[in-house]
């Protein structure tokens, strides 16, 4: 049996088919058939491994119909990592099909190339200056472009392989802090990225090396070798920094986990471990530095927990703490339910993604908040759509822009 399939089977071996996950899966809420649920997906993984199912279009469709948001694993009595299993199965299917589909190869190539990502930012910037681009990135940009570009925040915490350990990094004003700018922030939210740099700059010296993609999209879509190459580039690039701070939940999660991908590599093991140990999410960094908002605004905020932050890195309290200091904070129902963006998911399954988002929108509206805040460009894209759908009842912003 294929090793990856065996791994997938082992990952789901603890599934007791009880059904607890049926109640939390955001996709099961919008398409309530067994194959949507984590239980169904685990059974598919086992069925494939045990020869009860043949890989085909149906299987492929089912394993790709997953936000990899990890809500299932979080609530599962056995902590069965359905999401991780799905990544394995996707890789198996991809390998069998002779490599990733053209779409993902293209996406991989775009994000692989710093030049192209830079160009993307430039072109978006130009559009923005010309007033052709509203804050909403999906609105007026040529259709083709965002399709390639929206890929910063792929895959759920699964791609990370479990919640990240808390960084043991030593903080202080003397630390050499470097900003890791994710493709999503670069492409879609340069203003938010600027705000992040300003926040960081206010706390001490900060550098902003021209880093390549964190590699998560590649990892999530069967381009493991590219992922490792990118990781090495980043490890080398940030060797001089004491701390690497990012304002993208997905990048943060991926980077914190790099060490685990090099465990068997004597050349890179130590360097990777040192790198991962110094990665912090922006909110984590600010709270640990005792950051104080310069002013408290008369605004009501609510927070959407990105999967990669809440389940990928175990960060729940910090953003709330920052928002409570910056204005009035109201928690929404199901704040940690995936928004439906999930990398390319919203492109592959626009209808389901829209339904998942509609639920989010109504939960945001119910809080009466002026602004829904998040900490991941992928989510921000979705939430901006939600804001539009709500007819201006609330705005969506990155946390660096409101604190």
């Amino acid at each position, binding site marked *: 049996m294929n090793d990856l399939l065996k791994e997938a089977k082992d990952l789901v*071996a*603890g599934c*007791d*088919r*009880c*059904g*607890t996950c*049926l*109640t939390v899966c955001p996709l099961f809420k919008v398409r*309530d*058939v*067994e*194959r949507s649920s984590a239980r*169904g997906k685990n*059974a*598919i993984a*086992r*069925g494939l491994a*045990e*020869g*009860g*199912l*043949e890989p*085909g279009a*149906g*299987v492929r*469709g*089912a394993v790709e119909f997953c936000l990899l948001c990890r809500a299932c694993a979080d609530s*599962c*009595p*056995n*902590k069965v990592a359905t999401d991780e299993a799905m990544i394995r199965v996707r890789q198996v299917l991809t390998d069998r099909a002779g490599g990733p589909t053209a779409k993902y190869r293209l996406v991989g190539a775009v994000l692989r190339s710093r030049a192209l990502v830079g160009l993307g930012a430039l072109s978006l910037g130009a559009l923005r200056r010309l007033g052709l681009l509203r804050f909403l990135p999906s609105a007026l940009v040529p259709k083709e472009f965002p399709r390639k570009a929206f890929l910063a925040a792929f895959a759920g915490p699964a791609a990370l392989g479990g919640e990240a350990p808390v960084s043991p990094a030593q903080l202080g004003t003397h630390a050499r802090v470097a900003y890791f700018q994710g493709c999503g922030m670069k492409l879609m939210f340069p203003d938010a990225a600027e705000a992040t740099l300003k926040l960081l700059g206010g706390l001490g010296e900060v550098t902003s090396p021209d880093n390549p993609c964190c590699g998560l999209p590649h990892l999530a879509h069967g381009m493991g070798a590219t992922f490792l190459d990118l990781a090495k580039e980043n490890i080398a690039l940030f060797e001089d920094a004491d701390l690497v701070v990012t304002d993208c939940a997905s990048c943060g999660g991926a980077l914190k986990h790099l060490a685990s991908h090099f465990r068997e590599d004597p050349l890179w093991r130590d360097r990777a471990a040192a790198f991962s140990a110094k990665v912090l999410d922006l909110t984590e960094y600010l709270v640990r530095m005792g950051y104080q908002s310069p002013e408290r605004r008369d605004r009501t905020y609510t927070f959407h927990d990105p999967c990669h932050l809440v389940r990928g890195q175990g960060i729940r309290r910090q953003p709330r703490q920052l928002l409570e200091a910056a204005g009035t904070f109201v928690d929404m129902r199901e704040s940690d339910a995936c928004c439906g963006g999930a990398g390319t998911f919203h492109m592959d399954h626009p209808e389901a993604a829209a339904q998942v988002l509609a639920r989010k929108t109504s939960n945001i509206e119910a809080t009466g908040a002026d602004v829904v805040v998040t900490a991941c460009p992928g989510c921000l894209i979705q939430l901006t759509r939600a804001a539009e759908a709500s007819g201006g009842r609330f705005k969506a912003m990155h946390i660096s822009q409101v604190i």
Partner: protein
Amino acid sequence: MPVTTLLDELRLIVGQDHVLDGEVDRFGYSYDSSFLPLVPARKPDLVVRPRTVQEVSRVMALAHAAGIPVTPRGAASGRTGGSVPLEGGISLALDRMTDILEVDEANMMVTVEPGVRTMDLHDACAARGLFYPPDPASWKFSTIGGNVAENAGGMRAVKYGVTRDYVMGLQVVLADGAILETGGKAIKNVTGYDLTSLFTGSEGTLGVITKVLLRLIPLPKQRGVLRLMFADMEDGCATVHRMLKEDIVPSAAEIMDDVSLEAVARHRKMTLPAGAGCCVIIEVDGEDAASLDGQYERIRHVAAACGCLEFKVAKDKAESDELWAVRRGLSSAVASLAPNRLGEDISVPRDAFPEVVRRIGAIAKKFDLLIPVFGHAGDGNLHPSVLCDMADAGQAERVHHAVDAIFEAALAVGGTLTGEHGIGITKRPYLAQALGETGVRTLKAIKAGLDPKGILNPGKIW
């Protein structure tokens, strides 16, 4: 009828989206939460998901005319293979029928569709100060239709009884599509045979439940949860036994042995006192705080006399929820200890509980297997779980003997094969032993009368 016409007909009845015939979907409706192997899969030919009783009725009429097997399905959380379509045909999933039709506060009754989840029903009633007590550990995801079909029990059975004690009436679609109404809101009702009871616990073999009328009681105002640790099961059992004898009736008394305890402790960062080999979780309810305090004191007294190592009262709702979560996650946590688990569900007279636990211990030793035990100490229902690796042929053989021995032990102390999970597929071989030839013949006669073609959930119970 040619297959294509049948498909078209079904699609006309329930709508295009609600007939599934793809390979992956058929596979998805081939299993439940029982310990039957996943492969070879017992796939239905079609999955049909009706929304109304009329749709169910028309689907059944069609299936009846064509002689197609139909297996009703709720959430597939059953533990004995009840919703597994053994003979293919149609998997009739009732999980789209999710309306709470009426909460009749004056008569303290509620009418629901079968796909309503047990917890949602409970919450909807609780919001009006009414209480639907049966709460199987699967209440978050199991459906009320499944609960009625299995006559599910719950943690609170010791004080409040099981599903059957609350079912006042049913709407059932019979094998040929005819719609039967049983029971009603009148508390006293002896008109004819008790059909409501007959369909309750019938495991989807006699009819499809499409509506359920349930009796409610007032919601207890206060509730408290306790966690008691003991050195071993004997002490734990003795405590529950003495409590009941002294007329302290908890609303739940759940017991677990050392292996079960460790399994949950691993998942939930619980710290266990040194030497703890048994945990009892007790829930009490009452009118006010004073009534709870009184019960805590009496329980503390009894427990101390039985060698209680640690006595803990949950401080707040969060702590109570955590204690319950420990119990509700238990079944799955134990299952994750080994590649396979055969979870059994025997029920014995209350006073035989310690004896049967002892016998199971001996069986584990004899067959060299790990068999953790947990269950509802308050009502004599226990769940021994044979942990094993069925891929190991030698072990598989021992496992079968051990399971046989467990059932024998249950019957020997005056107990029965199942307290709540039903017979389904997994306990079929033991039925005659439990009911006797005449018992089985009587069941079969009823089945033949209601489902002469044998299309409803074939292969189950006998």
